[in-house]
């Protein structure tokens, strides 16, 4: 493997990480929005969100990516591979994030909320000042865990031809006719990234536990 080969696999890893980050940045607030819909028990939307979350959580990332990229054009929504990958990854992670946010919201002491209500706080202030700051801390471990899982499932977007780490390693392998070394390198590189994230996750958990509200 030449230096160029190592570089192209590293570039692939960077591409994969940026896709993960984009989907995480979009997916966390989207998950919160979905969780709020379920928490507020909005009559019609409640059922839709429930079904959406249930279906998306059981859908493999590969199949979801293929659906978004190949099937949406039939509805006139034609996306390039990278936006399609971000949409698919965001949809997937938002469903999981919804459950994480929701479990924290459900555990939120209702009396605090009622107290805010009795003070006639407008809804926005209620959410911003009372609910979210506390719920955010409770959900953080789950959210960070989901981020790690999300980064691990991002290589699924290789199936729509994005030159991310898997496709880069495949190309190097098919050019040099030695498929194993590029994949060992890719696995070690990507594994290190995930390992660093898991360490970070543990640090955050420890800090939260000592920081007070768990």
């Amino acid at each position, binding site marked *: 493997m030449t230096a160029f080969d190592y570089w192209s696999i590293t570039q692939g890893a960077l591409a994969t990480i940026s896709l993960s980050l984009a989907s995480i940045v979009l997916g966390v607030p989207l998950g919160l929005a979905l969780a709020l819909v379920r928490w507020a028990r909005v009559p019609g939307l409640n059922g839709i969100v429930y079904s959406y979350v249930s279906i998306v959580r*059981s859908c493999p990332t590969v*199949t979801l990516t293929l659906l978004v990229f190949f099937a949406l054009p039939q509805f006139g929504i034609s996306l390039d591979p990278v936006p399609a990958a971000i949409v698919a990854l965001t949809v997937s992670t938002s469903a999981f994030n919804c459950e994480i946010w929701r479990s924290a919201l459900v555990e939120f002491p209702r009396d605090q909320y009622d107290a805010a209500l009795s003070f006639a706080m407008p809804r926005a202030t209620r959410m911003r000042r009372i609910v979210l700051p506390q719920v955010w801390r409770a959900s953080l471990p789950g959210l960070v865990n989901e981020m790690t899982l999300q980064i691990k*499932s991002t290589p699924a977007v290789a199936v729509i031809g994005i030159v991310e780490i898997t496709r880069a*390693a495949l190309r190097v392998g098919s050019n040099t006719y030695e498929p194993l070394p590029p*994949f060992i390198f890719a696995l070690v590189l990507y*594994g290190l990234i995930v390992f660093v994230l898991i360490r970070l996750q543990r640090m955050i958990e420890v800090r939260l536990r000592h920081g007070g509200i768990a």
Partner: protein
Amino acid sequence: MMHDFATIWSQRDVVFAGLLNTVILLVVAGVASLVLGALLTPLLMSRHKLVARAASAYVDAMRCAPFLLFVYLIYFGLPTFGISMSNWAAGALALILYNTAYMGELLRGAWQELPVTMIESGKAFGFRGLTLLRRIILPPILLRAMPMIGNQMIQIVKDSAFLTVIAVSELTHEMTGIQATYFIPFAAFVTAVLLYWCICLAIEAGTGVLNKIAEERRA
């Protein structure tokens, strides 16, 4: 659109074959990884430092590795060691190796919650080694960890879709073939998504039933 679904219906034996393959992979990988995971857990908790370190290095490696890359590693790596396996077998092996680590880890979590008195009274009655494991320790931790095992099974189903890249004819692979031949991407993939949903609902229902049994046993 209805015409597209009619085409899928006409290909239903292909779809069914893919679905069956996914379910078979789930059962094989699920059972094997659960059994091997149950054997891994005592190694993780072993008093011999070296054994425990080796076992947790294995678990950490599997938790850091993305499954797709791991699949390719097995797929390309085995032949270099002279082991020739079919694509299906290589895929199943990857699923088993990957999920054994997860099963071992979650069983370990359940083990640590087990009251020490239970194990001690077992030892007082003369249970040792493998029998101790099989009759005293495993039943309660399996039942306690049932929801997490159910989650892991769902993860196995989702990971099985990755095997399409090494030409294992599971559900996603067959659907990709159908949509490429008949140009019906939406119908094909929506059907696949709904079928995966059904499998996962079935797993959740099964886990719920087992959970009820566990509750009754504990009470």
